[in-house]
């Protein structure tokens, strides 16, 4: 698919999709979204990129091998699970920290749950790209 318009357009589209995918992941705890959806959205962007510009370019843009990303995601998710054990909780219990919390304001909530969701995101993202790139290159 050798179209300049498609190639240029896809670059912006892929970037937008990537940003949007982070947004989807971050809002997931309270609104529709989350790691699975975010990972799928992000992967869609790179799939488009690979179709428009070829997998070589897409791989170069990604910089890291997609299977590495997937395995890192799995490792992060596992680490979060084990992290709870430090506090004597059951495996995968969410740990929360409310920065600047007062009596009325709950402050900035930070949680291990979000990190777990990032792991999920990376797994979905990496796995899909592993498959798509391999299939594209195969044909």
């Amino acid at each position, binding site marked *: 698919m050798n179209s300049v318009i498609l190639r240029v357009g896809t670059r912006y589209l892929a970037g937008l999709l990537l940003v949007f995918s982070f947004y*989807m992941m971050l809002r*997931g*705890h*309270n*609104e*529709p*979204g*989350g*790691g*699975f*959806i975010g990972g*799928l*959205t992000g*992967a*869609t962007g790179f*799939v*488009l990129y690979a*179709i428009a510009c070829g997998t070589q370019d897409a791989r170069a843009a990604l910089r890291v091998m997609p*299977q590495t990303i*997937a*395995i890192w*995601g*799995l490792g992060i*998710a*596992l680490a*979060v*699970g084990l992290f709870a054990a430090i506090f004597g909780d059951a*495996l*995968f219990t*969410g740990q*929360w920290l409310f920065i600047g919390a007062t009596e009325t304001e709950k402050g900035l*909530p930070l*949680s291990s*749950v979000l990190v*777990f*969701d990032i*792991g*999920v995101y990376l*797994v*979905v993202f*990496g*796995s*899909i790209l*592993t*498959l*798509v790139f*391999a*299939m*594209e*290159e*195969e*044909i």
Partner: protein
Amino acid sequence: MAGGFPTDTRGNGLTGIVPVVFAAALFVYFASMVPTIAATEVIRVSIPWIPSLGIELAFLVDGLSLTFSLLISGIGTLVLLYSNTYLAGHPQYARFALFLTAFMVSMLGLVLADDLILLFVFWELTTLTSYMLIGFSHETEKSRRNALQALFVTGAGGLAFLAGLILLAAASGTTSISGIIAQGSALKEHAMYLPILILLLAGTFTKSAQVPFHFWLPNAMAAPTPVSAFLHSATMVKAGVYVMARMHPAMSGTDVWLWTLTILGAVTAVFASLLALRQTNLKQALAYTTLMALGTLTLFLGQESGYAMTAFATFLIVHSLYKASLFLVVGCIDLSTGTRETDQLGGLGRIMPITAVAAALAALSMAGFPPFLGFIGKELKYAGAIAVASEPLLVAGAALLSNALMLAVAGVVAFRPFWQGSVPSGQSPREAPWQMWAGPIILASLGAVFGVYPDLLQVALINPTVISLTGEIGEAKELKLWAGINVPLFLSIATFILGLLFYKFHVQLRAKLEQGFQAIPNLDKGWDSFLDGLKRFAKWQTQLVQNGKLSSYLFGTFLTIAAGILLTLVYTGMPMIAVDLSDVEWKHTSIALLTIAGALLALVTNSRIAGIAALGVVGIGIALIFIVFSAPDVAITQLLVETLIVVLVAVVMLRLPSLPKAEFRPGRAVLSIAVGVAVSLTLIAVVSSPLDLRLTDYFEATSWPEAYGRNIVNVILVDFRALDTFGEIAVVVIAALSAYALLRTTRKGDQK
């Protein structure tokens, strides 16, 4: 193994010493329990293992298990000491020592286990470790074949054994062995008694190599000689005998038990003695005499009298002592001269005096000469045989014949190579180093010591063992060297005369036996063709099930789904379904029509791209349903996945040639309609039954206060059910990597 003794007799360093010390420590540990057991007490230890099933890690030390434990750990120590020199400098000695020690521990676990499931675990462990040991010289084809044969035969028996144990546990309501025995004769009257007995005996007879499963034992002699000494004299083959003995109080006394064990035991004993005499290879001859011993032990377990039980306990010990000793002697002869063939051996007595003495002591015990323990064992055997109420003539006859043959074999194995003929030219034998003659001498001397002082054994081991076997105190008969002039004595004299005649004419007999055995079918000959047949069958059925056509896999999968659902519906009764269409709105109808239209288009189109797009429409229709019923997360996921699938499939499909004109295939049409109907019926049934909302309510109530999230779906994914999610993403990664590997492999294959 030829080529003389190792020049470096220091062995294998720490790798060689540690197992010996370990085994010796175990022996001392068990020996320290003798006073308790001699006082007719038992020691029981148990730790809960699977409490929900009542299965315990329970161990019981009583007369029977202690006798076995002492034999296993004691002979184990001597065998490990012996192997350290026998295999000195062998590059894989560490592996060997590990297997042998692991085997020893498994065997100890087997005889000490007081729980059926635990017993089975150790039973299988002995099978596996013995497989490793028999196949230790894995470079040779024969060794691998024979190890596999032993594994298959005992493993198949093990499956029957497991089935028997499960039935036994179900019948008696407990997996505890002492619990089952405490129930007395309840088991004998149980309706499942016969199936249990048959299955258990299938396991024990294969493990103990009783006729007709005897063919694997001589083949197992492919193992290094110390292994044969250990596994095939004192331990593994006696596992079957042990289990029969263990179950004796609960299961013996019925006609089936009596006749099965008596007849098969007698047949094995006589048959094996004849086979032993036929052999010219020392190790093979000993292997068959082991069979004879196992047959005799089985024979005695068929009975119930105190004489038979005392005979069992005594012969068990006698046999282990002399047989291990003789195997080790054969190992010495083998290393010294480079051969195990009787025709090529002679005059070793002067050159290997210590080995010769050990051989002589063991052989005299085996042949049953006074004052050895073997003599007492033989007298007791005859006394036990005569005490058999039902068929004394048969049992005594079998015992007489096999004992006479045993005497002849003892002569062939332990007398002829040392004291007849002269050393053939080309051999330069030497005396074995001390590590190698220590074992045989100790074991053989014990046979003599216990023969002269039978009281030592009587109190410590024989009496408690008989109690284990009969469940009653005071059944044991006295071990005496001189029991007066009685029938057993006359039978002994007859044995000596007959045995010496057999020995004198054994060369002539051998030729006759050779002709005779040609006529008897041997399962070993059919073994290879049986295995080939099995492989052909596996190949045939694999090609049938996995023919490489994706469409037939899908057909099979969907057929199973449809059949499973529809059969369930037929058997459980079709739920009464009242479909209420009153609250269906126009948007529901239009989504349904859109989805149906997409499905129909995919069915009839000739264009791949149209087909893919049509399937996408179906997917989007489903996503719309999720939106209508307010499940935005699921809908978004569905849409994204649908998009990706369409893109991915399009990438692949567009490179393929266009579809041939769609043809109508009635079989597939029927199947797809069946799947559709089955799934629809299930869904309608699910929807029409009241929905259990407890879980939903719980998540709705706790999502915000406990997990600080308002999106319940996501909170469930990352918090409430985070472990499930972790499992899922692990599957995703594995799937991606496997698909990646597959795609890469085929590409490389194409490049070649």
